[in-house]
Protein backbone atom coordinates (compact mmCIF):
# COMPACT_ATOMS: atom_id res chain seq x y z
CA UNK A 1 0.00 0.00 0.00
CA UNK A 2 1.79 3.15 -1.16
CA UNK A 3 -0.37 5.37 1.05
CA UNK A 4 0.74 3.59 4.21
CA UNK A 5 4.36 3.55 3.07
CA UNK A 6 4.28 7.29 2.41
CA UNK A 7 2.73 7.87 5.82
CA UNK A 8 5.45 5.92 7.62
CA UNK A 9 8.21 7.51 5.54
CA UNK A 10 6.94 11.04 6.19
CA UNK A 11 6.26 10.56 9.88
CA UNK A 12 9.57 8.79 10.36
CA UNK A 13 11.31 11.66 8.61
CA UNK A 14 9.46 14.25 10.71
CA UNK A 15 10.34 12.48 13.95
CA UNK A 16 13.95 11.93 12.93
CA UNK A 17 14.43 15.53 11.87
CA UNK A 18 12.78 16.80 15.07
CA UNK A 19 15.05 14.57 17.13
CA UNK A 20 18.02 16.06 15.27
CA UNK A 21 16.79 19.56 16.16
CA UNK A 22 17.37 18.88 19.84
CA UNK A 23 20.02 16.19 19.32
CA UNK A 24 22.99 18.33 18.30
CA UNK A 25 24.52 21.57 19.45
CA UNK A 26 24.80 23.76 16.36
CA UNK A 27 21.76 26.09 16.22
CA UNK A 28 22.15 26.48 12.46
CA UNK A 29 21.67 22.75 11.92
CA UNK A 30 18.74 22.80 14.33
CA UNK A 31 16.97 25.39 12.21
CA UNK A 32 17.61 23.43 9.01
CA UNK A 33 16.39 20.19 10.57
CA UNK A 34 13.24 21.88 11.80
CA UNK A 35 12.55 23.11 8.25
CA UNK A 36 12.93 19.53 7.00
CA UNK A 37 10.54 18.37 9.70
CA UNK A 38 7.98 21.01 8.65
CA UNK A 39 8.26 19.80 5.07
CA UNK A 40 7.46 16.24 6.14
CA UNK A 41 4.52 17.48 8.22
CA UNK A 42 3.22 19.38 5.18
CA UNK A 43 3.30 16.05 3.33
CA UNK A 44 1.23 14.49 6.12
CA UNK A 45 -1.30 17.34 5.83
CA UNK A 46 -1.64 16.65 2.10
CA UNK A 47 -2.38 13.04 2.98
CA UNK A 48 -5.05 14.25 5.38
CA UNK A 49 -6.78 16.15 2.54
CA UNK A 50 -5.68 19.55 3.79
CA UNK A 51 -3.62 20.91 0.86
CA UNK A 52 -4.23 24.54 1.78
CA UNK A 53 -2.90 24.05 5.31
CA UNK A 54 0.07 22.16 3.85
CA UNK A 55 0.94 25.07 1.59
CA UNK A 56 0.35 27.56 4.40
CA UNK A 57 2.66 25.48 6.57
CA UNK A 58 5.43 25.85 3.98
CA UNK A 59 4.78 29.55 3.34
CA UNK A 60 4.30 30.69 6.94
CA UNK A 61 6.38 28.28 9.00
CA UNK A 62 9.18 27.26 6.67
CA UNK A 63 9.20 30.37 4.51
CA UNK A 64 8.74 33.15 7.06
CA UNK A 65 9.16 32.09 10.71
CA UNK A 66 12.20 29.93 10.04
CA UNK A 67 13.86 32.63 7.93
CA UNK A 68 13.44 34.86 10.98
CA UNK A 69 15.16 32.26 13.15
CA UNK A 70 17.91 31.81 10.58
CA UNK A 71 18.35 35.56 10.41
CA UNK A 72 18.74 35.82 14.18
CA UNK A 73 21.17 32.87 14.31
CA UNK A 74 23.28 34.53 11.63
CA UNK A 75 22.99 37.97 13.18
CA UNK A 76 24.09 36.85 16.64
CA UNK A 77 26.58 34.45 15.08
CA UNK A 78 25.11 32.15 17.70
CA UNK A 79 27.84 30.21 19.44
CA UNK A 80 27.64 26.44 19.55
CA UNK A 81 26.25 25.23 22.82
CA UNK A 82 28.95 24.01 25.14
CA UNK A 83 28.56 21.07 27.49
CA UNK A 84 30.37 22.99 30.23
CA UNK A 85 27.62 25.59 30.24
CA UNK A 86 25.49 23.21 32.26
CA UNK A 87 24.83 24.55 35.68
CA UNK A 88 24.65 21.41 37.80
CA UNK A 89 24.30 23.12 41.15
CA UNK A 90 20.58 23.78 40.70
CA UNK A 91 18.47 21.63 43.09
CA UNK A 92 16.30 20.36 40.23
CA UNK A 93 19.39 18.99 38.44
CA UNK A 94 20.47 16.58 41.18
CA UNK A 95 20.88 13.05 39.76
CA UNK A 96 18.09 11.65 41.93
CA UNK A 97 15.65 14.32 40.82
CA UNK A 98 16.55 13.79 37.16
CA UNK A 99 16.04 10.04 37.53
CA UNK A 100 12.63 10.55 39.14
CA UNK A 101 11.65 12.86 36.28
CA UNK A 102 12.79 10.30 33.73
CA UNK A 103 10.78 7.61 35.46
CA UNK A 104 7.63 9.75 35.47
CA UNK A 105 8.14 10.62 31.81
CA UNK A 106 8.46 6.99 30.74
CA UNK A 107 5.41 6.16 32.83
CA UNK A 108 3.51 8.85 30.95
CA UNK A 109 4.66 7.46 27.60
CA UNK A 110 3.52 3.95 28.52
CA UNK A 111 0.14 5.22 29.71
CA UNK A 112 -0.33 7.32 26.60
CA UNK A 113 0.51 4.42 24.30
CA UNK A 114 -1.83 2.13 26.22
CA UNK A 115 -4.64 4.71 26.09
CA UNK A 116 -4.22 5.31 22.35
CA UNK A 117 -4.06 1.65 21.44
CA UNK A 118 -7.01 0.60 23.57
CA UNK A 119 -9.33 3.52 22.79
CA UNK A 120 -12.37 2.71 20.70
CA UNK A 121 -13.48 4.62 17.63
CA UNK A 122 -9.96 5.45 16.62
CA UNK A 123 -9.51 2.50 14.28
CA UNK A 124 -10.87 2.00 10.80
CA UNK A 125 -8.90 4.65 8.94
CA UNK A 126 -8.83 8.38 9.43
CA UNK A 127 -10.54 9.04 6.08
CA UNK A 128 -13.52 6.83 6.81
CA UNK A 129 -16.00 9.66 7.42
CA UNK A 130 -16.63 12.90 5.61
CA UNK A 131 -15.82 13.38 1.96
CA UNK A 132 -12.42 14.58 0.81
CA UNK A 133 -14.00 17.23 -1.44
CA UNK A 134 -15.46 19.25 1.44
CA UNK A 135 -12.46 18.94 3.69
CA UNK A 136 -9.92 19.94 1.06
CA UNK A 137 -11.98 22.74 -0.49
CA UNK A 138 -10.46 26.18 -0.01
CA UNK A 139 -13.87 27.70 -0.70
CA UNK A 140 -15.49 25.96 2.28
CA UNK A 141 -12.50 26.81 4.43
CA UNK A 142 -12.70 30.50 3.57
CA UNK A 143 -16.44 30.60 4.19
CA UNK A 144 -16.17 29.05 7.64
CA UNK A 145 -13.14 31.17 8.55
CA UNK A 146 -14.84 34.45 7.67
CA UNK A 147 -18.26 33.64 9.11
CA UNK A 148 -18.08 31.42 12.18
CA UNK A 149 -14.55 32.38 13.19
CA UNK A 150 -14.57 36.00 12.11
CA UNK A 151 -14.19 37.33 15.65
CA UNK A 152 -11.20 35.10 16.33
CA UNK A 153 -9.76 36.17 12.98
CA UNK A 154 -10.00 39.86 13.86
CA UNK A 155 -8.58 39.18 17.32
CA UNK A 156 -5.60 37.48 15.68
CA UNK A 157 -4.95 40.51 13.52
CA UNK A 158 -4.75 42.65 16.67
CA UNK A 159 -2.44 40.06 18.23
CA UNK A 160 -0.12 40.29 15.24
CA UNK A 161 -0.12 44.08 15.42
CA UNK A 162 0.75 43.96 19.12
CA UNK A 163 3.50 41.41 18.45
CA UNK A 164 4.93 43.60 15.69
CA UNK A 165 5.03 46.70 17.88
CA UNK A 166 6.45 44.65 20.75
CA UNK A 167 9.20 43.18 18.59
CA UNK A 168 10.20 46.60 17.29
CA UNK A 169 10.29 48.08 20.80
CA UNK A 170 12.20 45.14 22.29
CA UNK A 171 14.81 44.87 19.56
CA UNK A 172 15.53 48.57 19.43
CA UNK A 173 18.81 49.58 20.98
CA UNK A 174 18.49 51.69 24.12
CA UNK A 175 18.87 55.40 23.53
CA UNK A 176 18.05 55.02 19.88
CA UNK A 177 15.21 57.09 18.47
CA UNK A 178 12.91 59.24 20.64
Amino acid at each position, binding site marked *: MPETLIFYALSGFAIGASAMVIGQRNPMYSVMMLIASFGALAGLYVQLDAP*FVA*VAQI*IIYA*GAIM*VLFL*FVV*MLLNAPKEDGSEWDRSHPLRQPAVVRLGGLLASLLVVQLGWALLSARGLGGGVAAFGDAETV*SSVRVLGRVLFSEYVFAFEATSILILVAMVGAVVLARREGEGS
Partner: protein
Amino acid sequence: MDLLLIAQLGVIGLTFFMLINASAILVLAERKIMGFMQQRYGPYLVGPHGMLQPFADIIKLLMKEELRPKGADKWLFTLAPMLSITAAFAAFATVPWGAETTLFGLLDEPVKLGVSDVNVGILVVFAITSMGVYGIVLAGWASNSKYSLFGGLRASAQMISYELSYATSLAAVILLAGSLSLREVVDGQSGVWLGFIPSWYIFLQPVGFIIYMIAGVAETNRAPFDFPEAEQELVAGYNTEYSSVRFALFPQAEYINMTTMAAVATDLYLGGWHGPFLPPEYGWIWFLLKVGAILFTYIWVRWTVPRYRYDQLMRFGWKWLFPASVINLIVTAALVLYFNA
Protein backbone atom coordinates in the same frame (compact mmCIF):
# COMPACT_ATOMS: atom_id res chain seq x y z
CA MET B 1 1.71 0.98 -20.84
CA ASP B 2 -1.08 3.45 -21.02
CA LEU B 3 -0.67 5.91 -23.89
CA LEU B 4 -2.00 8.79 -21.81
CA LEU B 5 0.48 8.08 -19.03
CA ILE B 6 3.34 8.07 -21.53
CA ALA B 7 2.15 11.39 -22.94
CA GLN B 8 1.94 12.86 -19.44
CA LEU B 9 5.45 11.68 -18.60
CA GLY B 10 6.62 13.09 -21.92
CA VAL B 11 5.14 16.48 -21.04
CA ILE B 12 6.91 16.42 -17.67
CA GLY B 13 10.21 15.52 -19.31
CA LEU B 14 9.71 18.22 -21.92
CA THR B 15 9.05 20.84 -19.22
CA PHE B 16 12.25 19.87 -17.45
CA PHE B 17 14.20 19.95 -20.73
CA MET B 18 12.80 23.37 -21.61
CA LEU B 19 13.74 24.78 -18.21
CA ILE B 20 17.32 23.57 -18.56
CA ASN B 21 17.50 25.06 -22.02
CA ALA B 22 15.87 28.27 -20.88
CA SER B 23 18.77 28.90 -18.53
CA ALA B 24 21.30 28.26 -21.32
CA ILE B 25 19.44 30.47 -23.79
CA LEU B 26 19.07 33.22 -21.20
CA VAL B 27 22.81 33.25 -20.51
CA LEU B 28 23.45 33.86 -24.20
CA ALA B 29 20.54 36.28 -24.62
CA GLU B 30 21.66 38.33 -21.64
CA ARG B 31 25.17 38.75 -22.98
CA LYS B 32 24.01 39.44 -26.53
CA ILE B 33 21.43 42.03 -25.46
CA MET B 34 23.92 43.60 -23.07
CA GLY B 35 26.38 43.85 -25.97
CA PHE B 36 23.73 45.38 -28.19
CA MET B 37 22.82 47.96 -25.54
CA GLN B 38 26.44 48.88 -24.98
CA GLN B 39 27.14 49.03 -28.72
CA ARG B 40 29.39 46.01 -28.87
CA TYR B 41 28.99 42.55 -30.32
CA GLY B 42 28.87 40.44 -27.19
CA PRO B 43 30.12 36.85 -27.40
CA TYR B 44 31.12 36.22 -31.00
CA LEU B 45 33.83 33.58 -31.15
CA VAL B 46 32.23 30.23 -30.30
CA GLY B 47 29.99 29.02 -33.13
CA PRO B 48 28.15 31.24 -35.61
CA HIS B 49 27.54 34.64 -33.96
CA GLY B 50 28.63 33.16 -30.66
CA MET B 51 25.58 30.90 -30.54
CA LEU B 52 27.47 28.06 -28.85
CA GLN B 53 28.79 30.27 -26.04
CA PRO B 54 26.61 28.61 -23.32
CA PHE B 55 28.21 25.22 -24.08
CA ALA B 56 31.66 26.75 -23.80
CA ASP B 57 30.66 28.32 -20.48
CA ILE B 58 29.31 25.06 -19.12
CA ILE B 59 32.33 23.02 -20.20
CA LYS B 60 34.65 25.61 -18.68
CA LEU B 61 32.77 25.59 -15.37
CA LEU B 62 32.69 21.79 -15.19
CA MET B 63 36.44 21.57 -15.76
CA LYS B 64 37.30 23.94 -12.92
CA GLU B 65 38.61 22.70 -9.62
CA GLU B 66 36.04 22.45 -6.87
CA LEU B 67 37.24 24.43 -3.90
CA ARG B 68 35.87 24.53 -0.42
CA PRO B 69 37.25 27.09 2.01
CA LYS B 70 38.83 25.58 5.10
CA GLY B 71 36.51 27.33 7.54
CA ALA B 72 33.39 26.55 5.54
CA ASP B 73 30.66 24.37 6.96
CA LYS B 74 31.12 21.07 5.14
CA TRP B 75 27.47 20.01 4.85
CA LEU B 76 25.68 23.28 4.38
CA PHE B 77 28.24 24.51 1.82
CA THR B 78 27.32 21.57 -0.43
CA LEU B 79 23.64 21.62 0.44
CA ALA B 80 23.08 25.30 -0.43
CA PRO B 81 23.47 25.15 -4.23
CA MET B 82 21.45 21.93 -4.38
CA LEU B 83 18.67 23.57 -2.42
CA SER B 84 18.70 26.55 -4.77
CA ILE B 85 18.43 24.52 -7.94
CA THR B 86 15.87 22.07 -6.52
CA ALA B 87 13.58 24.88 -5.43
CA ALA B 88 13.98 26.55 -8.83
CA PHE B 89 12.94 23.44 -10.74
CA ALA B 90 10.22 22.41 -8.31
CA ALA B 91 8.55 25.82 -8.43
CA PHE B 92 7.60 25.20 -12.05
CA ALA B 93 5.69 22.03 -11.10
CA THR B 94 2.26 23.61 -11.00
CA VAL B 95 2.72 26.17 -13.80
CA PRO B 96 0.70 25.18 -16.89
CA TRP B 97 2.09 26.26 -20.25
CA GLY B 98 -0.48 25.15 -22.81
CA ALA B 99 -4.10 24.20 -23.38
CA GLU B 100 -5.29 20.61 -23.22
CA THR B 101 -4.29 18.79 -26.36
CA THR B 102 -4.88 15.34 -27.86
CA LEU B 103 -1.64 15.60 -29.88
CA PHE B 104 -3.58 15.82 -33.17
CA GLY B 105 -5.97 13.03 -32.31
CA LEU B 106 -3.26 10.61 -31.25
CA LEU B 107 -4.70 10.26 -27.74
CA ASP B 108 -8.20 9.35 -26.70
CA GLU B 109 -8.25 11.74 -23.78
CA PRO B 110 -6.64 15.20 -23.85
CA VAL B 111 -3.40 15.67 -21.95
CA LYS B 112 -2.73 18.89 -20.04
CA LEU B 113 0.43 20.75 -20.99
CA GLY B 114 2.10 21.29 -17.64
CA VAL B 115 3.60 19.08 -14.97
CA SER B 116 0.62 18.96 -12.64
CA ASP B 117 -2.59 20.78 -11.89
CA VAL B 118 -3.54 21.11 -8.22
CA ASN B 119 -6.30 23.18 -6.71
CA VAL B 120 -3.87 25.43 -4.78
CA GLY B 121 -1.42 25.82 -7.68
CA ILE B 122 -0.55 29.51 -7.23
CA LEU B 123 0.22 29.00 -3.58
CA VAL B 124 2.43 26.01 -4.34
CA VAL B 125 4.52 28.11 -6.73
CA PHE B 126 4.73 30.82 -4.10
CA ALA B 127 5.64 28.38 -1.31
CA ILE B 128 8.42 26.69 -3.26
CA THR B 129 9.81 30.00 -4.51
CA SER B 130 10.03 31.16 -0.92
CA MET B 131 12.12 28.06 -0.17
CA GLY B 132 14.71 29.30 -2.66
CA VAL B 133 15.89 31.94 -0.18
CA TYR B 134 17.42 29.20 1.98
CA GLY B 135 19.87 28.27 -0.74
CA ILE B 136 21.24 31.80 -0.85
CA VAL B 137 21.19 32.39 2.91
CA LEU B 138 22.92 29.09 3.64
CA ALA B 139 25.50 29.70 0.92
CA GLY B 140 26.24 33.03 2.56
CA TRP B 141 26.53 31.59 6.04
CA ALA B 142 28.35 28.35 5.23
CA SER B 143 31.12 30.06 3.22
CA ASN B 144 32.53 31.58 6.40
CA SER B 145 33.36 34.82 4.62
CA LYS B 146 32.14 38.27 5.58
CA TYR B 147 31.15 39.19 2.04
CA SER B 148 29.16 36.00 1.64
CA LEU B 149 27.50 36.52 5.01
CA PHE B 150 26.47 40.05 4.06
CA GLY B 151 25.07 38.74 0.79
CA GLY B 152 23.08 36.09 2.63
CA LEU B 153 21.72 38.53 5.22
CA ARG B 154 20.71 40.97 2.52
CA ALA B 155 19.06 38.21 0.50
CA SER B 156 16.93 37.07 3.43
CA ALA B 157 15.79 40.59 4.35
CA GLN B 158 15.14 41.57 0.74
CA MET B 159 13.25 38.47 -0.25
CA ILE B 160 11.03 38.51 2.84
CA SER B 161 10.22 42.17 2.32
CA TYR B 162 9.29 41.81 -1.33
CA GLU B 163 7.46 38.52 -0.85
CA LEU B 164 4.68 40.51 0.84
CA SER B 165 4.05 42.79 -2.12
CA TYR B 166 4.40 39.81 -4.43
CA ALA B 167 1.80 37.76 -2.55
CA THR B 168 -0.59 40.70 -2.21
CA SER B 169 -0.54 41.38 -5.95
CA LEU B 170 -1.19 37.67 -6.55
CA ALA B 171 -4.15 37.82 -4.17
CA ALA B 172 -5.82 40.52 -6.31
CA VAL B 173 -5.70 38.23 -9.35
CA ILE B 174 -7.03 35.33 -7.30
CA LEU B 175 -9.97 37.54 -6.31
CA LEU B 176 -10.73 38.29 -9.96
CA ALA B 177 -10.43 34.69 -11.09
CA GLY B 178 -12.13 33.15 -8.06
CA SER B 179 -9.76 30.19 -8.16
CA LEU B 180 -6.36 29.18 -6.84
CA SER B 181 -5.64 26.85 -9.74
CA LEU B 182 -3.41 28.45 -12.37
CA ARG B 183 -5.15 26.59 -15.18
CA GLU B 184 -8.54 27.97 -14.12
CA VAL B 185 -7.08 31.48 -13.87
CA VAL B 186 -5.83 31.19 -17.45
CA ASP B 187 -9.15 29.81 -18.66
CA GLY B 188 -10.88 32.82 -17.10
CA GLN B 189 -8.95 35.03 -19.53
CA SER B 190 -10.17 33.56 -22.83
CA GLY B 191 -12.27 35.69 -25.14
CA VAL B 192 -12.27 39.41 -25.89
CA TRP B 193 -13.91 42.60 -24.61
CA LEU B 194 -15.56 45.06 -27.02
CA GLY B 195 -14.52 42.90 -29.92
CA PHE B 196 -10.82 43.67 -29.94
CA ILE B 197 -9.31 43.91 -26.44
CA PRO B 198 -8.19 40.46 -25.27
CA SER B 199 -9.71 39.82 -21.85
CA TRP B 200 -6.44 39.53 -19.99
CA TYR B 201 -6.17 40.46 -16.35
CA ILE B 202 -3.40 42.94 -17.10
CA PHE B 203 -6.09 45.35 -18.29
CA LEU B 204 -7.99 44.93 -15.02
CA GLN B 205 -4.86 44.87 -12.88
CA PRO B 206 -2.30 47.25 -14.42
CA VAL B 207 -1.02 48.34 -11.01
CA GLY B 208 -0.91 44.76 -9.80
CA PHE B 209 1.09 43.72 -12.85
CA ILE B 210 3.67 46.45 -12.30
CA ILE B 211 3.96 45.55 -8.61
CA TYR B 212 4.31 41.89 -9.53
CA MET B 213 7.10 42.64 -11.99
CA ILE B 214 9.04 44.87 -9.58
CA ALA B 215 8.67 42.39 -6.73
CA GLY B 216 9.62 39.61 -9.14
CA VAL B 217 12.88 41.38 -10.02
CA ALA B 218 13.64 41.74 -6.31
CA GLU B 219 12.70 38.10 -5.60
CA THR B 220 15.05 36.81 -8.27
CA ASN B 221 17.85 39.10 -7.04
CA ARG B 222 18.44 40.81 -10.36
CA ALA B 223 19.62 44.32 -11.06
CA PRO B 224 18.57 46.95 -10.02
CA PHE B 225 17.92 44.90 -6.86
CA ASP B 226 20.91 42.53 -7.02
CA PHE B 227 22.15 43.37 -3.53
CA PRO B 228 22.97 39.81 -2.44
CA GLU B 229 25.68 39.69 -5.10
CA ALA B 230 26.46 43.38 -5.61
CA GLU B 231 29.89 43.00 -7.17
CA GLN B 232 31.11 46.54 -6.44
CA GLU B 233 30.36 46.17 -2.74
CA LEU B 234 30.55 42.47 -1.85
CA VAL B 235 32.98 40.90 -4.37
CA ALA B 236 30.35 38.44 -5.60
CA GLY B 237 28.08 38.30 -2.55
CA TYR B 238 26.81 34.93 -1.41
CA ASN B 239 28.65 32.97 -4.11
CA THR B 240 32.08 34.52 -3.55
CA GLU B 241 33.61 31.30 -2.24
CA TYR B 242 32.01 28.97 -4.75
CA SER B 243 33.65 27.45 -7.80
CA SER B 244 33.02 24.91 -10.52
CA VAL B 245 29.70 23.01 -10.59
CA ARG B 246 28.52 24.37 -7.25
CA PHE B 247 29.02 27.89 -8.56
CA ALA B 248 27.29 27.11 -11.86
CA LEU B 249 24.14 26.01 -10.04
CA PHE B 250 23.46 29.47 -8.55
CA PRO B 251 23.17 31.44 -11.81
CA GLN B 252 21.28 28.54 -13.33
CA ALA B 253 18.80 28.63 -10.45
CA GLU B 254 18.50 32.40 -10.92
CA TYR B 255 17.69 32.05 -14.61
CA ILE B 256 15.17 29.28 -13.96
CA ASN B 257 13.55 31.42 -11.27
CA MET B 258 13.31 34.24 -13.80
CA THR B 259 11.62 31.87 -16.24
CA THR B 260 9.16 30.76 -13.57
CA MET B 261 8.39 34.38 -12.68
CA ALA B 262 7.78 35.19 -16.33
CA ALA B 263 5.65 32.08 -16.84
CA VAL B 264 3.51 32.84 -13.79
CA ALA B 265 3.13 36.46 -14.92
CA THR B 266 2.01 35.19 -18.33
CA ASP B 267 -0.50 32.83 -16.77
CA LEU B 268 -1.88 35.38 -14.33
CA TYR B 269 -1.87 38.63 -16.26
CA LEU B 270 -1.21 38.04 -19.95
CA GLY B 271 -3.81 35.39 -20.68
CA GLY B 272 -1.46 32.42 -20.75
CA TRP B 273 -1.80 30.56 -24.03
CA HIS B 274 -4.84 32.54 -25.20
CA GLY B 275 -4.20 34.79 -28.17
CA PRO B 276 -5.54 35.72 -31.57
CA PHE B 277 -4.77 34.03 -34.92
CA LEU B 278 -3.55 30.69 -33.60
CA PRO B 279 -5.86 27.71 -32.90
CA PRO B 280 -5.88 26.60 -29.24
CA GLU B 281 -3.65 23.57 -29.92
CA TYR B 282 -0.88 25.94 -30.85
CA GLY B 283 -1.48 28.19 -27.85
CA TRP B 284 1.88 27.24 -26.37
CA ILE B 285 3.50 29.35 -29.10
CA TRP B 286 1.74 32.40 -27.68
CA PHE B 287 2.85 31.33 -24.23
CA LEU B 288 6.49 31.09 -25.27
CA LEU B 289 6.30 34.46 -27.06
CA LYS B 290 4.84 36.18 -23.99
CA VAL B 291 7.38 34.59 -21.65
CA GLY B 292 10.13 35.65 -24.03
CA ALA B 293 8.84 39.23 -24.05
CA ILE B 294 8.80 39.39 -20.25
CA LEU B 295 12.28 37.89 -20.02
CA PHE B 296 13.53 40.45 -22.53
CA THR B 297 12.10 43.18 -20.31
CA TYR B 298 13.96 41.70 -17.33
CA ILE B 299 17.26 41.85 -19.21
CA TRP B 300 16.46 45.28 -20.62
CA VAL B 301 15.80 46.64 -17.10
CA ARG B 302 18.99 45.08 -15.79
CA TRP B 303 21.19 46.89 -18.29
CA THR B 304 19.29 50.18 -18.13
CA VAL B 305 18.63 50.92 -14.47
CA PRO B 306 21.55 51.31 -12.05
CA ARG B 307 21.56 49.56 -8.70
CA TYR B 308 19.80 51.24 -5.80
CA ARG B 309 21.26 51.66 -2.35
CA TYR B 310 20.27 49.08 0.23
CA ASP B 311 18.31 51.49 2.43
CA GLN B 312 16.53 52.81 -0.67
CA LEU B 313 15.54 49.26 -1.52
CA MET B 314 14.04 48.68 1.92
CA ARG B 315 12.31 52.06 1.96
CA PHE B 316 10.86 51.51 -1.49
CA GLY B 317 9.68 48.01 -0.63
CA TRP B 318 8.01 48.84 2.66
CA LYS B 319 6.86 52.42 2.19
CA TRP B 320 5.77 52.43 -1.46
CA LEU B 321 5.39 49.00 -3.00
CA PHE B 322 3.65 47.24 -0.11
CA PRO B 323 1.08 50.02 0.59
CA ALA B 324 0.42 50.28 -3.14
CA SER B 325 -0.24 46.55 -3.38
CA VAL B 326 -2.53 46.62 -0.33
CA ILE B 327 -4.53 49.51 -1.78
CA ASN B 328 -4.68 47.65 -5.08
CA LEU B 329 -6.02 44.59 -3.29
CA ILE B 330 -8.66 46.54 -1.37
CA VAL B 331 -9.87 48.38 -4.48
CA THR B 332 -10.02 45.11 -6.43
CA ALA B 333 -11.96 43.43 -3.62
CA ALA B 334 -14.45 46.31 -3.47
CA LEU B 335 -14.96 46.29 -7.25
CA VAL B 336 -15.35 42.51 -7.39
CA LEU B 337 -17.94 42.73 -4.62
CA TYR B 338 -19.77 45.57 -6.40
CA PHE B 339 -19.92 43.89 -9.80
CA ASN B 340 -20.75 40.44 -8.47
CA ALA B 341 -23.60 41.71 -6.30
